[in-house]
């Protein structure tokens, strides 16, 4: 195994998050009650997804600049893992929403934009499937990846903030104002973001290595 330390770090951080997220002190909020602990498990999924998507776009740009097939491979796998986290985020969000807002899919701008974002990235995978030529697939899907990312960011950050949403931090307030987040939650949330991102990178790295082996065997 190459460079084991960050994997160990990911495991340590996530273990801390699981323990302290369930046992540590949390603020008492009316509607949320005990389910506020989900902040340490549901919210980091989105942060990790965004970080993975940014990485994917960076690799796509690098592919277009340098034209190495390896970069394209990494970009796809980061996008794949990001989609996995996105689907998990949707599911956990639906479970949580069912208890606090009384509806698994309330008509909330943030939910809808994320669903559209998922559609975009599914379209990305479909686009990749419809090419035979590798070079061409890599180049065109890199172009689409960058394009989609540029549309996705306003979709999830700017649009929901302009309308009323059930999520905190929308309708004009900055996200994570002093109302909902206090330091005890932050102490779990931020490590959770780092830990989950590292886990995502780990999964991605495994898949990339598997693909590289496949490519090497084909040669």
């Amino acid at each position, binding site marked *: 195994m190459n460079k084991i330390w960050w994997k160990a770090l990911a495991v340590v951080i996530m273990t801390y998050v699981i323990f302290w997220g369930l046992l540590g002190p949390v603020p008492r909020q009316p509607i949320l009650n005990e389910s506020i602990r989900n902040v340490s498990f549901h919210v980091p999924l989105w942060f990790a997804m965004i970080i993975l998507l940014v990485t994917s776009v960076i690799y796509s740009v690098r592919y*277009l600049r340098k034209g190495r097939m390896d970069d394209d491979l990494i970009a796809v796998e980061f996008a794949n893992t990001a989609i996995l986290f996105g689907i998990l985020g949707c599911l956990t969000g639906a479970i949580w929403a069912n208890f606090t807002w009384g509806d698994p899919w309330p008509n909330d701008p943030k939910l809808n934009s994320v669903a559209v974002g998922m559609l*975009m990235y599914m*379209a990305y995978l479909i686009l990749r499937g*419809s090419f035979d030529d590798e070079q061409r697939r890599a180049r*065109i899907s890199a172009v689409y990846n*960058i*394009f989609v990312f540029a*549309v996705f960011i*306003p979709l999830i950050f700017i*649009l929901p903030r302009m309308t009323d949403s059930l999520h905190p931090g929308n309708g004009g307030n900055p996200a994570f104002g002093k109302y909902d987040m206090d330091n005890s939650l932050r102490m779990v949330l931020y490590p959770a973001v780092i830990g989950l991102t590292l886990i995502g990178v780990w999964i991605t790295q495994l898949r990339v290595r598997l693909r590289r082996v496949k490519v090497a065997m084909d040669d």
Partner: protein
Amino acid sequence: MTESIRQMGALMRKEFLLEWRQRYALNGMLLYIVSAVFVCYLSFNARRGQLTPIVWNALFWIILLFTAINAIAKSFVQERAGRQLYYYTLASPQQIILSKILYNTVLMLVLALLGFSVYAFVLGNPVKDVPLYLVALVLGAIGFSASLTLVSGIASKAENPSTLMAVLSFPTMLPLLLELLKISKNALDGLDRSISWKEVGTVLAIDAIVLVLSWLLFPFLWRS
């Protein structure tokens, strides 16, 4: 600079000429939007002014979206590889994409205005602030043509362009469409214009992002 503008003018002229020679395609698009409006009119079985403003508005934009996808999808698909190679020797990719976007914007404006007038004619016109609605149409035409031109360029390289065109374009159009719906709803209700400025700004920003991206990314598409 003047040279490149002249070249772009020539490319634009070529687009218009091509369209004019294949008049059936243009007429087809015009007929497409008119008949789509008429189908909606008949299937809602609505007498004038019976649709609620929300339905009226949403229906119009959905018709426009489908028309745009159909109209712009052919901007790359229709051109054969040989001709594309010929352009490649003549002009830079940036000029080609810009001329295509400009041409498609004009096409979309014609289609949107025609669609709007027919739609208002058969289904009644509840719009209280027509100038603002027209602003929304113009912004929509620019945004639709910019993003759809790039997407059609992407789709035309793949195996089955028509299906892919729809799959790729719907989600990418959505942010734009949502904001446009909001502006046009405000125009429909005749709200004070200051309320809509924020949305107009967002649409302008999205248009700008899409235009810049097309400009930057198209050369990479072109090369393959």
